[in-house]
């Protein structure tokens, strides 16, 4: 579904991604972990063109988002194609980024109506199912400011799912929540994984990475140092940076 090859990205002088490659198969759940500043968010943001890469290649489910020509130029897909690609990928941010002026229900149906141009009546049953799935249907007329952090994040997930994405990207979806609310969100994500959604998750929740992810990718300083089945990785991290990191976390 996602293929990234030798992706490089700098902000000014600072090289943030130093050749990152990744293959994400359909129905796979991959967790990305690593210390702060290692480039995890940037990598995720490159996958749906919130950042433009400097060189390398990214394909999403067969569509090319960017590639480097043999003469070294990086060709980026045009905006219209980017939007089509984005519609196939849901993204959930650390800070939710809900639309505060819309109710819970409106947050879910806004994009299908505006972007996919579907009729309101057509989406409503689906929205109800989604909101029920994440457990906040009873809050459907509340505004984001009136629900808890955990509910906000579950709403963000529902909002992304309403566009019927093939892939879900999560960027530390629980790290602005306190530990109890974290539980709610992780449960929702676990359900998604069980329903066999393709997922790429940047997270600090080791329990989640260990139990839910098929594979774990350990990034440090703009590089992928390890990428192995999660059970193996947690059992016995090869790289000593990874080992130090795990010790610090637990």
């Amino acid at each position, binding site marked *: 579904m996602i293929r990234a090859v030798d992706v490089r990205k700098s902000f000014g002088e600072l090289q943030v991604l130093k050749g990152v490659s990744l293959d994400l198969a359909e129905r796979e759940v991959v967790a990305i972990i690593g210390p702060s500043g290692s480039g995890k968010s940037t990598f995720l943001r490159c996958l*749906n063109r*919130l950042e433009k890469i400097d060189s390398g290649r990214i394909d999403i489910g067969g569509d090319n988002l960017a590639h480097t020509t043999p003469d070294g130029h990086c060709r980026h897909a045009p*905006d219209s194609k980017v*939007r*089509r690609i*984005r*519609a196939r*990928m*849901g*993204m959930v*941010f650390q*800070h939710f*980024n*809900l*639309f*505060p*002026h*819309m109710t819970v229900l409106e947050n879910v149906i*806004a*994009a299908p109506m*505006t*972007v*996919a141009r579907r009729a309101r009546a057509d989406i409503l049953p689906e929205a109800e199912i989604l909101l029920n799935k994440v457990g906040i249907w009873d809050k459907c007329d509340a*505004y*984001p*400011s009136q629900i808890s952090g955990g509910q906000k994040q579950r709403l963000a997930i529902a*909002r*992304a799912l309403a*566009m019927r994405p093939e892939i879900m990207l999560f960027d530390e979806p629980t790290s602005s929540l306190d530990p109890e609310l974290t539980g709610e969100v992780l449960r929702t994500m676990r359900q998604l994984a069980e329903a066999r959604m393709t997922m790429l998750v940047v997270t600090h929740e080791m329990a989640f990475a260990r139990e839910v992810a098929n594979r774990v990718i350990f990034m440090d300083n703009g590089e992928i140092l390890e990428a192995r089945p999660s059970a193996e990785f947690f059992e016995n991290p090869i790289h000593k940076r990874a080992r130090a990191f795990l010790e610090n976390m637990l």
Partner: protein
Amino acid sequence: MDTLFNNIVPLLHGARVTLELFFITVILAMPLGLALALMRISRFRLLTAGVNAYIWLMRGTPLMLQMFFIYFALPNIPGFPIILPDFLTAVIAFTLNYAAYLSEVFRAGIQSIDKGQYEGAKVLGYTYLQTMRHIVMPQVIKRVLPPLSNETITLVKDTSLIYVLALSDLLKVVRGIVLRDFSPAPFVVAAVFYLLMTFLLTWVFQRMEKHYAVYD
């Protein structure tokens, strides 16, 4: 009170001129101000610089001089004189001037919207225009209400400047009566009118703020 009754016709006429200028300016300057704000935050350097210069000029010189300019300088352009009627001159000067002020209000409002809102919309596939229309603007309106309220209240009082164009706004009518009757009492009428307008505007804006407060 006598003064009031005896002069009710010119007073009403003056109030009408004031109110007309006020409402027309509000209706025209808002969209123009918004357009200027969008141009100013656009990526086109030249456009941005142009709008910047415009705003500087409009905010940097007194509105009265701007009216003089449109009224007396444009008709003297050699070969292409533009002679505008009084009220139209006032409307144009006020609109151009207030659009500059309002554009700064809108710009601040737009820039105060969290970057996350744009990204949230982007990843859902929104175009720039859709993002502006459905996500950013509805939130901007709420945020600009307080400064907008300030600007409109200032506008109410600025309308009296059109006396330089021989237009009879309320304050000018009142001043005329004061001159004729040698009594400063009519000024009270003017003060009450302005206070009332301010009161009404404040009320309307507070209602609107409350309306938008639901999602706070």
